[in-house]
């Protein structure tokens, strides 16, 4: 971990296991071998 609880660049990315809008579970670990861009949205108006 880097400052303020942030994961550091070069370190393993924290796992993501979340539902998508179709009710499927999406796991970051299933996408090893590919580059993944993760965009964290702010609130939706």
């Amino acid at each position, binding site marked *: 971990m*880097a400052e*303020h*609880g*942030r*994961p*550091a*660049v*070069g*370190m*393993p*990315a*924290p*796992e*993501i296991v*979340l*539902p*998508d*809008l179709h009710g499927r579970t*999406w796991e*970051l*670990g299933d*996408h*090893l*071998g*590919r*580059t*993944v*861009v*993760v*965009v*964290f*949205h*702010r*609130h*939706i*108006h």
Partner: protein
Amino acid sequence: MRDRLDELGPDTEVVLVTFTTDDRAERYADAHRLPFPVLVDESRSVYRAYGLGRGSMARVWGVRAARRYVEILRRDGLAGLRRPTEDTLQLGGDFVVAPDGTIAYGFWGAGPDDRPTVDELIDAVGRTRS
């Protein structure tokens, strides 16, 4: 980002994480025709894992936000204002995860409009291949 997905190159995926409800996320994804998965993190546990906290009132509701609301008021009057139903202080961020599962790039937003450019993200993706 949506309009430049082809510039990310092969073997690259994009996911959007939101903390809103399924219904609102679905409406948003439909309205913006998002071609990538939208993941729902209502508890914000993944936001916390990536070090994305809440901004200060002063930073989030600062001069830029005030200007935007003045513009809306001028254009649409009071009818244009909608009461926020979500945590407006939650900050966003952008990350590129390399094929080996490590973080290749991280951007922690400090305010509402603080995001990396699409060019920065495309460059960061390109570096995961070099």
